[in-house]
């Protein structure tokens, strides 16, 4: 068994040095080139960033440089935190303040975004790092000190208080997850992964990590390609993509554009749907378009990676909800009822997960870590540590997991995980804000903002844009002369819910 994700990269590089690892529309890297670049970057970073510190990656999102930067950070013995350089400056600064990185590794565009923040974290230019001298002695010394429990990545997700949470995964998490994932999907060396998910989302882990362990090839789909379904389809065909992992919303948007013909993607072998429930009709369109593919559903989150996975049967009963597959052999799920006792077999309960790859906690956030990770929840004395998923589900008789939804205000909007509380926190921070709330219309995937008082819609829109990522912005704004209240003077959300119809 491996003790570092770098061992996967090095093993593949020895075996297939001249095979293309990652490519985009501008650049391409063989495994030998990727390793060399990563070692140069690691040598350069190590001069600035001490062992086991976080490094923020600020790079153009659709570039394979992200991959060299990630593995380079690992060579320096550090953990990477990829960031979206297109997010509002205020939010980027918030994330960097939370992370307190020892260095920022940035390309030209990233350096520009970083300069605007006026922060004093040392900046390492990507161009300098990739051409730095490979200091083999130093890298060897770092490896001797490394532990399998060293942090490898910090991936941020939305938090209900307005403060994002940075999920920490270690080399140990990744090594175990990689073996389990390759096994369950039956992944092979000759695959071509089409990567659509940006590297700052946990969804991309499948595209960055598995292929390196297999010696497969990854093609980065061009920027904004989801907006151009015709072009997306052409890219998948021209690049002979055999595996595509996206959120159901992304798969659905291609179906809605009407570009998929039966049999049009014969080379596709794996269609993988992540994160939320996929309705049957659009899935059927994809199945018809990809006659040689198996379609997989998986359930997971940034903190849990994947929990359960399963192949969707082509003979599904169209009227019923799709299960998310069987729990991994290395995953242990507890189902708890409202009183915190184990739910009866087959009855829904909140899911708590233990697995070798659950995150260790939230970076520099002991309070919220304590709230979400619990030791020995049933008090049976075994001291097993679980992550509280916040999702409700149950195991069917056939062993498949059915996920029913959330216990709280976390939602998936346009395929992205977010907390409605984060939008409300941003509203409360706006000048002149009086009262209101944010609700989600799940059926139509729209966020509604209800408010009363002074600011007009334009001011709200402009204000929220300053601090929120765009997928968090409300779709509908409704100004009320007076907010409805419950007897205890809270905003009456049920009355407002009626207004969304």
């Amino acid at each position, binding site marked *: 068994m491996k003790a570092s994700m770098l061992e996967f990269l090095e093993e593949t590089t020895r075996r297939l040095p001249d095979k293309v690892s990652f490519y985009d529309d501008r650049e391409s890297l063989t495994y030998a080139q990727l390793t060399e670049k990563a070692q140069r970057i690691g040598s350069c970073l190590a001069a600035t960033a001490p062992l086991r510190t976080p490094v923020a990656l600020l790079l153009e999102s659709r570039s394979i440089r992200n991959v060299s930067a990630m593995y380079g950070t690992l060579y320096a013995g550090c953990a990477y935190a990829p960031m979206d350089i297109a997010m509002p400056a205020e939010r980027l600064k918030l994330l960097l303040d939370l992370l307190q990185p020892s260095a920022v590794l940035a390309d030209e565009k990233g350096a520009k975004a970083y300069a605007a923040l006026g922060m004093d974290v040392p900046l390492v230019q990507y161009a300098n790092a990739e051409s730095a001298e490979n200091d083999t002695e130093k890298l060897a010394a770092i490896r001797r000190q490394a532990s399998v429990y060293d942090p490898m990545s910090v991936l941020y997700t939305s938090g209900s208080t307005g403060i994002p949470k940075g999920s920490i995964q270690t080399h140990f998490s990744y090594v175990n997850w990689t073996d389990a994932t390759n096994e369950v999907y039956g992944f092979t060396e000759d695959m071509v992964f089409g990567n659509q998910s940006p590297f700052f989302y946990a969804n991309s882990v499948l595209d960055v990590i598995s292929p390196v362990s297999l010696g497969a090839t990854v093609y980065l789909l061009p920027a904004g390609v989801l*907006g151009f379904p015709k072009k997306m389809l052409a890219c998948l065909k021209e690049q002979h993509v055999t595996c595509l992992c996206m959120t159901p919303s992304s798969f659905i948007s291609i179906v809605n554009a009407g570009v998929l013909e039966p049999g049009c993607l014969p080379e596709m072998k794996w269609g993988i749907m992540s994160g939320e429930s996929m309705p049957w009709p659009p899935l059927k369109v994809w199945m018809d378009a990809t006659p040689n593919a198996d379609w997989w559903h998986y359930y997971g989150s940034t903190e849990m990676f994947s929990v359960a996975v399963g192949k969707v049967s082509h003979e599904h009963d169209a009227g019923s909800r799709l299960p998310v597959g069987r729990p991994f052999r290395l995953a242990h799920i507890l189902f708890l009822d409202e009183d915190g006792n184990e739910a009866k077999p087959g009855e829904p309960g909140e899911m708590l997960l233990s697995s070798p790859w659950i995150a260790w906690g939230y970076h520099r956030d002991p309070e919220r870590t304590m709230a979400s990770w619990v030791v020995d929840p049933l008090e049976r004395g075994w001291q097993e540590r679980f992550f509280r998923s916040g999702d409700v589900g149950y195991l069917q008789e056939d062993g498949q997991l059915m996920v029913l939804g959330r216990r709280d205000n976390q939602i998936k909007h346009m395929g992205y995980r977010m907390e409605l509380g984060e939008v409300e926190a941003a509203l409360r921070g706006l000048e002149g804000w009086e009262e209101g709330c944010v609700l989600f219309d799940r059926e139509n995937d729209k966020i509604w903002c209800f408010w009363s008082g002074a600011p007009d819609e334009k001011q709200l829109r402009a204000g929220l844009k300053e601090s929120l990522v765009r997928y968090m912005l409300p779709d509908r704004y409704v100004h009320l002369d007076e907010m409805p209240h419950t007897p205890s003077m809270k905003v009456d959300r049920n009355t407002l819910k009626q207004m969304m119809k």
Partner: protein
Amino acid sequence: MTDMEKLLAALAEVRDDVDFADEGALVDDGLIDSFDLTQIIAALDEAFDIHIITGDIEPENFNNVQSMLELVHRYQGK
């Protein structure tokens, strides 16, 4: 208001930080992404009372305002 003025006004509602009038490679240079695009299409639909079918569009249609206007006119049958 000319169609071009109408178009620029609609685009400014979506992104007020992008110089739509002068940029020639909005999509290729990554100045607008798929979020913007969805909003731009909705804004064009509303401003010109058309219905753009997403399966029809290519990046080339959105790289600059001239191409966007041509697309609008095609939908209007002009």
